[in-house]
């Protein structure tokens, strides 16, 4: 430049000497907000995290991220009531992302491709006994095994799966899918002993030389209601009915079957009865909107021809018929008898009024607390007896497969810590990524892929799956509908919209960094971040 005209002519790019960062009163910072789906997931899945990989078509990586939290995606992708989708921010934009169906696609893909879990890096030499091969027990066993512990499951029954097998009809969860996912856990080196009912937990632990135990025996005893009956033989409980459907001999319920209750189990039974050629009538004492069953299940049941009598209680059960009393809701919303009666044909009555836990194996264990028929556990899932943990339907919680899987994971982490003489402190939850944190302009308008439904007739007459899965094209489509709430998905907006080039792009998978020497703090990056993973914080001046 020496020979160039003084001052009039300048060297290129020399403005780097001018550090405009000093203008700033607020600075942008990258953050991960907790996506509402992740927050809502009882199994603690990193949904946004695995969708991120599914979006790029890397299904195996997506599955691997998924199974860090849940070893049963194919099952969960079918039976989970997907609170994630209810929480999904996209629901406020068009309709929520079909997370559940993508999960199922990934689960099925894993089975199809024979993906295996990674073996633990090292073994710990510790032995853990898991009692019960239901979702909670399988989940705990899986997580413990991946942490390097030696795990043995003792299952009272002849088959694994617990309520996934004995409580959920085949049309919702085909058994080959369940078997495949259980087998994959066993392939990790988990030992599973069938027909091994643990009668005394302390004894079993001592006999097997176990360092800790996780109890997940579930709740299998159907609740009875006091119904005056001339002949009680045609009154059965829902759990038994569903369990017997697993066997060769289908239960003999007759043509007219009254199902008593308004939960998902009642619906499952009624729909199963319909498939067996019966004529189910659900009797429930309150209204549809008060029923604990998911509305979409009620809707599907009604579409299949299941009759439902709302605001009715069974007063009397005789052979071939029952008497119901009409109810009405008082101002507080509780059903009150009206004195109006009606008779219904009924070859049998199935009670779907909930289940109790068989706590016999815990007899004599000191320090245990049982309340409302369930075992009390601390926040680390440990019972009052050190080294014995419990989860699933046998502890106070919502009784779903997903919650159970979550319990298994949580318990495994605490057991692992306990075995090392430490305690497990979960990381503090990030702030929730709310809809208002998003800039939805950047998302195209796309409609939810409607899962192909089997036609009505087929659904009513067989136990084939009601909902078909996504194929690869629409799974990809569905995954890409994710808004990635609160978590950078490398859209490059911050990098692009900065008028001061004050954002460094670190390369694929590495995200971005601010060049605070030049950032003037205009806030454009925050405003134009689609997913809300940047925020402004005051500068210390």
């Amino acid at each position, binding site marked *: 430049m020496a020979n160039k005209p003084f001052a009039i002519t300048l060297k290129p790019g020399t403005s780097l000497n001018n550090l405009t960062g000093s203008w700033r009163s607020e600075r942008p910072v990258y953050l991960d907000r907790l996506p509402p789906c992740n927050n809502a997931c009882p199994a603690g899945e990193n949904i946004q995290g695995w969708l991120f990989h599914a979006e790029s078509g890397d299904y195996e990586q997506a599955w691997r991220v998924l199974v860090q939290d849940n070893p049963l995606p194919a099952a969960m992708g079918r039976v989970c009531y997907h609170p994630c989708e209810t929480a999904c921010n996209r629901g406020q934009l068009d309709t929520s992302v079909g997370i559940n169906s993508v999960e199922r696609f990934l689960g099925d893909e894993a089975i199809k491709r024979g993906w295996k879990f990674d073996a633990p890096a090292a073994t710990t030499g510790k032995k853990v006994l898991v009692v019960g091969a239901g979702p909670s027990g399988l989940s705990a066993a899986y997580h413990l095994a991946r942490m390097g512990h030696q795990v043995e499951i003792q299952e009272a029954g002849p088959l694994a799966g617990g309520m996934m097998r004995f409580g959920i009809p085949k049309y919702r969860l085909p058994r080959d899918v369940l078997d495949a996912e259980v087998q994959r856990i066993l392939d990790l080196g988990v030992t599973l002993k069938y027909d091994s009912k643990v009668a005394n937990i302390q004894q079993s632990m001592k006999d097997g030389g176990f360092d800790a135990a996780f109890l997940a025996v579930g709740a299998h005893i159907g609740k009875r209601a006091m119904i005056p009956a001339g002949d009680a033989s045609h009154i059965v409980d829902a759990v038994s009915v569903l369990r017997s459907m697993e066997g060769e001999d289908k239960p003999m319920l007759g043509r007219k079957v009254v199902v008593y209750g308004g939960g998902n189990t009642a619906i499952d039974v009624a729909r199963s009865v319909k498939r067996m050629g019966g004529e189910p009538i659900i009797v429930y004492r309150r209204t549809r909107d008060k029923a604990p069953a998911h509305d979409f299940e009620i809707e599907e049941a009604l579409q299949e021809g299941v009759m439902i009598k709302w605001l009715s209680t069974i007063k009397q059960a005789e052979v071939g018929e029952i008497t119901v009393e009409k109810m009405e809701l008082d101002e507080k919303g509780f059903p009150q008898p009206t004195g109006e009666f009606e008779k219904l044909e009924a070859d049998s009555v199935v009670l779907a009024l909930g289940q109790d836990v068989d706590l016999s194996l815990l007899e004599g264990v000191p320090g245990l607390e049982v309340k409302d028929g369930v075992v009390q556990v601390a926040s680390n899932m440990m019972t009052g007896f050190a080294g014995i943990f419990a989860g699933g339907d046998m502890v106070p919680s919502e009784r779903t497969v997903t919650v159970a899987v979550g319990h298994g994971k949580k318990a495994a982490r605490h057991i692992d810590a306990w075995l090392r003489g430490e305690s497990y402190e979960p990381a503090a939850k990030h702030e929730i990524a709310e809809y208002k944190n998003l800039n939805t*302009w950047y998302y195209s308008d796309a409609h939810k892929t409607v899962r192909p439904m089997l036609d009505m007739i087929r659904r009513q007459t067989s136990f084939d799956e009601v909902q078909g899965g996504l194929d690869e094209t629409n799974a990809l489509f569905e995954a890409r509908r994710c808004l990635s709430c609160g978590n950078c998905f490398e859209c490059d907006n911050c990098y692009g919209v900065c008028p001061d080039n004050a954002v460094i792009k670190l390369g694929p998978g590495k995200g971005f960094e601010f060049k605070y020497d030049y950032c003037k703090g205009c806030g454009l990056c925050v405003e134009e971040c689609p997913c809300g993973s940047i925020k402004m914080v005051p500068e210390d001046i």
Partner: protein
Amino acid sequence: MSLQTVKFYQTGTYTVGNRLLGPDDRSVQSGELRSNSINSGHRACQGCGEALGARYAIDAAMAESNNQLIAVNATGCLEVFSTPYPESSWQLPWIHSLFGNAAAVATGVAAALKVKGKTDVRVVAQGGDGGTTDIGFGCLSGMFERNDDVLYICYDNEAYMNTGVQRSSATPPTARTATTMPVGKEPGNVFGQGKSVPEIAMAHGIPYVATATVADLRDLEYKVRKAMKMHGARYIHIFVPCPLGWGSASHDTIKLARLAKETGMFPVFEAEHGEVTSVLKIRNKQPIEEYLKPQKRFAHLFGKHAHPEMVAHLQAIADRNIRKYGLLDEEKAHG
């Protein structure tokens, strides 16, 4: 319009980049090696639309010309904030001569390149709305008429911002500026006849005319790159909000550009040889108030002494743009 056929539902085609796209389909701005034609350290205000628009445009032109580019700059904010002695932000050969002659200087540069047989080196001229639609208009028209091999880019922030926010012929009716104060019977800028330089450019029949905003990078880059593939006189008019002059939040720069387009206030289109060849459809039509309210320059239209008749008049202008350019699509298709 932005030739993006793959639809990514997560990111759409609206974000700057997209890890899901192949390298060829990515925007220039998303590239780690983009030229950053205007380097950090420039003295533009926080959230400056012009600094952003200029980097978008010049980086795209750099990419398309294989970095064989010379820029000519009219006097104005862009010039002042980028080259105060002793530092320059520009990373390409750049010259500033005067307020009103950027188009002519560019003609001269193009002529020199032609005579020297440097056919690979291309020329862009750039200026603000004052330097383009007012004082530089004569030279601009001359350059168009001769069909000189220059891409002229106007960064329109609708007033003379560098001198302290005075009215230009691109200032919208009712807007407050230092020379159109919100006082008297008809506060703010007058309802004149307007002056659409893109349309005037089209009347010259030049090969390419386009409008764009900083809110749609891909469209902007597509247009700059398309223009750079052509020869002869080309004109791109880029809408660049000015937080200082408009009295808007520095983080609203892109939002306001988006709203200008979504309300129909700023029609986004392209034309070849005087004929409109495509328009960027409105995706989610907004009433004009959505655009006006975040800007203090329109504050006198609302509040205690509101002027609903003026708002209605502005809405009518937007509606006329929508009709004239067919900005609303029945199918709501968008690019």
